[in-house]
């Protein structure tokens, strides 16, 4: 139906408070773009600018080929699900669902038909329709909030952390439901979250935001496997990636008393940041490359795996700490031999934080 485009968006509240510095994005029909980032990274402000609740200081917002940068929210034909659901407490569920349609003077027969369709998709049975939001459970309110956005059949579908008020079990179920709803919808969806699992499972594209800039815009797979910089590497993935600043000697980086071979680089750096996810650090067999030995000092049981912290001795200073995710039945000796597979290692520039090797 339409494409959502953001061009060099900037929002400046005061010279010191600039939540969004320069954000450009394109979301095609049927795509789900997730804005992922820590709190205060500007993701909600971007969403509110798309909805029209904030006016950008600079930049352009296009829906299809309409420039809606300064259009009123009601005239943009966007629908939004709020984190607090924001259901009208004095109206019944049915009135909540059709409030937007009545304003647009949609004929009553069509309203009925659309509400019926949406309540079928969301499993809102007829008995709920005459209730007020105060009489609903958290999960039901959440579904009504999604329903109110769905009946609008808008050009763009926006969601602001819609799952953060649900308990863990319900969240997983609704996440799966949302994925199906997104798949059935042929509109651009923009989804804001700080939860990386939601970002990974729901989206076709993830934009990692920090400090008002897009750090990386990529598919979930590439965000996870090929982080563009140190921030993305550290933010995405749980348990967090090991990120160690290591001194270099020639084309080798020194991890404690052990040596890791650097990839081919145009210039040999004095220091690098080495990143490797705990799940990629494996128990070593006899002749693996990048072999290290260390002393186990902390074992955290995560159920599926054990997160093991290892102290690697360092002749030139403090011991280096490396975390490894190992299956629970692995040998529980106080010293472990581990290998760091070179294709799982990420190298970053310690100053800029950018990845040193750009992979295709």
């Amino acid at each position, binding site marked *: 139906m339409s494409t959502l485009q953001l061009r060099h968006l900037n929002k400046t509240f005061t010279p010191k408070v600039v939540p969004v510095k320069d954000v450009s994005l394109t979301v095609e029909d049927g795509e789900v773009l997730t804005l992922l980032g820590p709190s205060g990274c500007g993701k909600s402000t971007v969403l509110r600018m798309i909805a029209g609740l904030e006016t950008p200081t600079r930049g352009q917002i296009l829906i299809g080929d309409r420039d809606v940068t300064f259009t009123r929210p*009601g005239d943009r034909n966007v629908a939004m699900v709020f984190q607090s*659901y924001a259901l009208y407490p004095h109206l019944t569920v049915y009135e909540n669902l059709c409030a937007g349609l009545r304003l647009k003077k949609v004929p009553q027969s069509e309203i009925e038909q659309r509400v019926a369709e949406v309540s079928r998709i969301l499993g809102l049975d007829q008995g709920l329709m005459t209730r007020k939001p105060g009489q609903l459970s958290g999960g039901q309110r959440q579904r009504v909030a999604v329903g109110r956005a769905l009946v609008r059949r808008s050009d763009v579908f926006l969601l602001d952390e819609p799952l953060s008020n649900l308990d863990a079990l319900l969240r997983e179920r609704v996440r799966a439901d949302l994925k199906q709803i997104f798949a059935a919808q042929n509109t651009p969806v923009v989804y804001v979250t700080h939860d990386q699992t939601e970002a990974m499972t729901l989206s076709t594209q993830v934009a990692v935001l920090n400090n008002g800039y897009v750090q990386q815009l990529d598919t979930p797979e590439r965000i996870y496997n090929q982080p563009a910089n140190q921030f993305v590497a550290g933010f995405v993935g749980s348990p967090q990636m090991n990120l160690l600043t290591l001194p270099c000697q020639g084309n080798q980086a020194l991890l404690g008393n052990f040596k890791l071979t650097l990839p081919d680089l145009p210039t040999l750096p004095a220091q690098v940041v080495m990143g490797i996810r705990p799940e990629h650090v494996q128990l070593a067999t006899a002749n693996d490359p990048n072999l290290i030995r260390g002393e186990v000092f902390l074992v955290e049981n995560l159920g599926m795996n054990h997160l093991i912290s290892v102290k690697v001795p360092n002749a030139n200073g403090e011991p280096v700490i490396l975390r490894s995710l190992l299956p629970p039945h692995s040998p529980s000796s106080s010293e472990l031999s581990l290998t760091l597979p070179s294709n799982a290692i990420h190298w970053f520039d310690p100053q800029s934080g950018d990845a040193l090797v750009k992979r295709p």
Partner: protein
Amino acid sequence: MSLGSNARQPRSPHPAPTRSLTLTNILFGLAVVAIVIFCLAPVLWQVLTSFKLTEDIIAIPNIYFPTRFTFDHYIQLFQRQPFWRYVLNSTFVAVTSTITCLAIGAPAAYALARLHPRGSHWILAGILLVTLFPYILLIQGLLQIVQVLHLANNYLALIITYTAINLPLTILVMRSFFAQLPKDLEDAARVDGYTTVQMLIRIVLPLTLPALVTTGILTFIASWNEYIFALTFITEDTMKTIPVAAAQISGSSTYEAPYGPIAAATVVGTIPLILLVLIFQRQIIQGLTAGAVKG
């Protein structure tokens, strides 16, 4: 959630706890009775006086609980002076002041709560400051203004004054109410396509009703009971309000103290207020915002 707990209840092995007469309960009951008597005794005294015969009123020793009742004082009250007229005057002045006060105060409070204008702290401090002046300090200045504007013996003199006096409270109460009203609701309404006016009328106003009723009743009571300004600005007999009229009731002869008619006037003047509070008490208590956001 409530459904779940209901379903579990029949299986519960414990019977509902029976009420026992413990010392705490007795003391609590006594305290309640004592407070009620302390607060309502003067009211009860007035009510009883209004129904007593004149001999019983002035009898010594006092007759606290009369055995003979009469409606004479009420009949006299309406026969000797146009008391209906006074009720009407009071009603008109109080209703108009209340509506004006809400019409000015609510938008002002909304602007202060939502738009965060520069120096809103100073504005609030100023509003609070106004409420600190005793009426008696204001009366001379106001009287001069009333003279200059030729508003004496005009309902406007009272309406403007009552509106102005009650505005600070209205603004302060409404502002804190608007401040706790979730902003997401208004955002959702704007995304749904409501214009600002539609949003205010159809979404914000219904949710604000309890606060409007509460502050409205407070303003109404204050205007209804006000005495000094009404005494000073209005001299024309047909334009008096109830408090002034009640205070000026005279006996049938110079030597008769008109306790009975005054008590009757007090009761008549209080009934509308009691009715008002009874009618709107549900609105006052009702928490309409429940369920707006995750609770």
